[in-house]
Each structure stands twice: as structure tokens, then as C-alpha cells.
């Protein structure tokens, strides 16, 4: 399996990368870790004429906490997030999600930005980023803009990024003290991708849920935020019965993916079960 021939460009700056991308138009693709793009190119599902490798853009490789915001550059690898003390100390959920991706070799190369832009419906990052209400930053030669993760994912391998744009990074608000979080995933055995993955981030006053974010990946063609489940939990006592009752609605009205790995019905079942379990995990029980 060998990709079709292409021109290879390694820009030295974000401006140069954006200019190359603008010039290449639909014929160009940027490359980060290459762990989704290259498999697609080997299968000739993608045949870019120009590949723009972002590897020299060291400014996109940083993890920073400033004020109450955790910022992660687009080129930060899954392994970097998994092992970063800034992430572990400020937002352990993201480190846990990173550590659940693929295997060590994949985590060494794959980047958070590449995963987000690729938009695989079974990818892990979207669940956590949706649960936490992450903001994404995009740049093109025309300027920069930011966008909520909730508006970014549009369908299988489809996101709101323009062909001329580069994702430079993302940010999340550092969760308030006492926030509890968990990620539950049923893995596809060979790759580690999520058959269903549920990320939960919640706050409680005593045993009353005061706020909650739940991100769901793997279940549908587009990762989504389970707002109906969230609404049902907010203001309620976090008893086992209330949790199960709320989680039971996670797949309602969702067109569940149906493929060789799992039927739609089974995925919906896994989603209900693991939503309840992820909430219990977050509560530490």
C-alpha cells in the first residue's frame, strides 16, 4: 500500500503554511502526525496533490495554563497530553482520554488537532471536548477565528473547518475545584477506537447535581453533547435511580451507527449503560 505521488512542502511559519494551503486550494492537505491522513492516502481514499507538513511549527506544540484557561496547541501529541503535568494537575480527564487512544506508537505520533479536524465519528477527543465546552482556534491567510467544539463536528469525517484553514489549538476552562470527571469507552479491539465513548464532567453540591456536561462519541455519525440527559440531571439528587433514568435517554432520537463492529441497537445499549457508569465513575462509586 503506497500513496499516490504528491508534492511535499515543509513551511517554517504558520503564515507560510496558510499561504501554501491557500495556493494549493482543494488539492492541498496539511499533515500533522499523519496517523489518519496517511492510512487514507495508502488506501487512496485521499489523494492530495500537495502535502503541507506542519512539523516545523513548534509554536503549535505547547501546553499552557494561563489564568483559568488550559491551552493545547494543535500539534500536541496524544502522548504529550497523557504525560503533561499541566494537564494532569488542571484537567485530569484530558490526560485519561489521551492515554486511552490507540496504542503507545499511535500516541507518539497522533496529534489532538489532527484528530479533531479528521472528525472520525469513533475518535475519543470529541467526547471530552464537547463535555468540557472546548473552544477551537482556526487560522487562514484571511485571519483567525474561534469556534465552539459543539459547532465544529458536522458528520462522519466532516467538520466546519474551511479548506484554507489550519487549526492552531484549543482551549478549555480549567474545571472549578471539586469538579468530577470520567471517561468510559468500549473499544474496538484492534485499533482502540470507540465503539461508544462517554465523557462526563460534573459538579455537585452535596448529592445534588449543580452542573454537568456529557459528550458522546462512537454512537452516531457525529459526536454530540447529550443535552437531554444533562437537563434531566441538573438540580436532581445523584441517586442510582436518577442516574439510570437520565442515562436511559442518551440514544433517544439518535440515528445510531451500524457497522461490522456493532449494530445500532447494541451501540445504543452500550451508550445507555456506559453513560450511567461514567457518571458513577465520576462520583467515585
Amino acid at each position: 500500500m503506497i500513496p499516490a505521488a504528491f508534492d511535499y512542502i515543509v513551511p517554517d511559519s504558520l503564515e507560510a503554511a496558510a499561504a501554501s494551503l491557500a495556493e494549493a486550494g482543494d488539492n492541498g492537505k496539511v499533515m500533522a502526525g499523519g496517523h489518519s491522513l496517511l492510512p487514507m492516502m495508502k488506501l487512496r481514499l485521499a489523494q492530495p496533490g500537495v502535502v503541507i507538513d506542519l512539523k516545523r511549527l513548534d509554536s503549535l506544540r505547547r501546553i499552557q495554563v494561563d489564568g483559568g484557561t488550559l491551552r493545547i496547541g494543535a500539534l500536541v501529541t496524544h502522548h504529550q497530553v497523557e504525560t503533561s503535568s499541566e494537564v494532569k494537575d488542571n484537567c485530569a480527564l484530558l490526560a485519561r482520554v489521551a492515554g486511552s487512544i490507540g496504542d503507545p506508537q499511535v500516541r507518539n505520533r497522533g496529534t489532538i488537532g489532527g484528530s479533531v479536524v479528521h472528525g472520525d465519528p469513533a475518535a475519543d477527543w470529541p467526547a471530552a471536548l464537547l463535555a468540557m465546552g472546548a473552544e477551537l482556534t482556526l487560522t487562514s491567510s484571511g485571519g483567525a477565528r474561534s469556534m465552539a467544539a459543539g459547532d465544529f463536528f458536522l458528520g462522519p469525517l466532516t467538520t466546519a473547518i474551511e479548506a484554507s484553514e489550519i487549526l492552531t489549538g484549543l482551549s478549555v476552562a480549567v474545571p472549578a475545584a471539586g469538579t468530577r470527571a470520567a471517561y468510559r469507552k468500549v473499544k474496538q479491539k484492534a485499533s482502540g477506537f470507540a465503539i461508544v465513548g462517554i465523557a462526563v464532567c460534573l459538579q455537585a453540591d452535596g448529592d445534588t447535581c449543580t452542573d454537568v456536561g456529557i459528550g458522546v462519541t462512537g454512537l452516531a455519525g457525529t459526536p454530540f453533547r447529550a443535552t437531554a440527559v444533562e437537563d434531566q440531571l441538573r438540580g436532581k439528587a445523584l441517586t442510582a435511580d436518577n442516574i439510570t433514568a437520565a442515562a436511559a435517554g442518551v440514544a433517544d432520537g439518535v440515528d445510531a451507527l451500524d457497522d461490522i463492529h456493532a449494530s445500532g441497537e447494541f451501540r445504543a445499549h452500550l451508550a445507555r449503560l456506559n453513560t450511567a457508569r461514567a457518571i458513577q465513575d465520576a462520583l467515585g462509586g
Partner: protein
Amino acid sequence: MSNTTTIQVRVNGVSRTEEVQPRLLLVHYLRDVLGLTGTHIGCETSLCGACTVMVDGAAVKSCTLLAVQTDGCEVETIESLATDDGLHPIQEAFWDCHGLQCGFCTPGMIMATRQLLQENPSPSEEEIRHGLEGNICRCTGYKHIVDAVKQAAEQMKAGT
């Protein structure tokens, strides 16, 4: 389109300058251009880990990397481990513990083990299994591989 790019890579300590097509995969560069056939090709789809090598000290699957992506990098393959004084402790341990049968997965297993022990010199059984998650063996049933990694860890600690 037969455009080429010049890359400079250090492979097992030897500097190389090469004209390559951008689409050349690292594994093909190592095997076909340099003749380092210790790195195996199993699945070609980044799942089996047989092609694992180290790039700048991190284990990667060389079937899912372009040679041009390693321009300026240090690449180490299975051939870098043994010296004139004998096998590397990880190789010794795989031999002693019967960590291989057909041996097809072994170069990748050993390179993945190398990264694992580099990050965690005393892994538990669970950590070993998690650390080798990206490598598939169709022969051994993994038990002897886990034993080999444990022995290698002990020996490498004793040796330092």
C-alpha cells in the same frame, strides 16, 4: 510525477543523505533502500506493530510514516541493539523466556519493549500488557513475551 526531496537521517548512528520520493514510507526506506530487513511489514495498516522502530527515541510504526517526515531525525531499528559484545538484554530475555516462536513480530515487540522500559524501568504485568498494546503476536499467546519483558527489566536495572 517523480519529484524527489533530499533528506538527512541518522540511522543506527550512521548519517545518510538521500534523494527520496515524498511518498516513500519509512519502512520501505529502511528495508529496500538501506537493506535493513530486520524491520518487518505485517499488516501495512498500523495495527500489528511488526514495523516498529524508534524515531528520536519514541517508538513509531514505520508503515505509517513517510521517510521525509524523519528528515533531521535519529532512527533506530532492531539492527542497532546487538553489539560485538553480544545481544542486548531485551534480546537475551526474549531468547531465554521463549518470547518468540516464528519471530515475525519480534523486532517490533523488542523496539516497543525498549520504549516501555525507557519510560518505566519496573513495569507491572498490567503495564507491560498496556505498553505492548500496539503489537500483535499470532504465536506465543503473549505470556512468554510478558515474562521476557520482566526479565529484561530486571537485567537492565542490575546492569546500570
